[in-house]
């Protein structure tokens, strides 16, 4: 789905179909590079969501295939990842989209007096 951006351009919301886990991973990596365990801990703090390890690795593989994250050199047995420039751009587009939907929802609740 194409969404309008604040700068007037049109960006593709590639994160619309990747699932919540992938979005949370990107948000976590936006704060700096992390490996699997650190990601799970950060997402638990950030969103109160406990990612299963199988879900985590599935999402990491998918995001890497899409070029939204990239692996860094391994530290011992741990493989840290960082968000790429296209990943940051995709996250911005997705968060803008969520903000608009959220604002519209709040407005309708207000107008409906619910």
């Amino acid at each position, binding site marked *: 789905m194409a969404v309008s951006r604040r700068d007037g351009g049109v960006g593709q919301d590639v994160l619309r179909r990747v699932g919540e886990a992938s979005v949370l991973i990107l948000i976590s990596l936006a704060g700096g590079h992390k*490996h*699997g*365990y650190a990601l*799970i801990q950060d997402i638990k703090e950030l969103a109160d969501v*406990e990612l*299963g*390890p*199988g*879900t985590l*690795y*599935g999402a990491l*593989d*998918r995001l890497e*295939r899409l070029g939204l994250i990239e692996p860094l050199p391994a530290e011992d*047995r*741990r*493989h840290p990842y960082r968000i790429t420039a296209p990943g940051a751009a995709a996250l911005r587009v997705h968060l803008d989209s969520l903000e608009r939907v959220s604002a519209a929802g709040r407005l309708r609740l207000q107008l409906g007096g619910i």
Partner: protein
Amino acid sequence: MYDPQATRLVETALRCYPARWRRRHGDEAAELAALLIRDGTPAGSIAWSYLAGAARAWLTPRPGRPLSTVACALLVAACSLGVSAGLLAPAASARTASTSQAHGSTHCRPGSPAPVPGVIPAMGRPQVIIWEAGHGRSC
């Protein structure tokens, strides 16, 4: 805390992943599981998460393995299941038939229907087949 049973459970789940995945993530995934178990996550839930992840890893098409290959693999699996079911169904009906015959008489009757070639003998109960002058007797 080291729990050999929990470790074995997680290792079994990790073995379900494709080899290329295990080469890349296997060591880290085992370490991650150990850390999560230490934090209090049940080993069963970790193993289940890895099992679901393994199923997704097998079904996700990757570069060099087009979607048609995945579809073919699924088709072969479905056919194997179909053939197995097809072999078991006549065996079950043959067992039902022999059981009803056994209820009808108290001794072996010469001239009972000969066993059908290619049918797997009924499972769970040994079946004795005596071949006598071209006639099969089933007891």
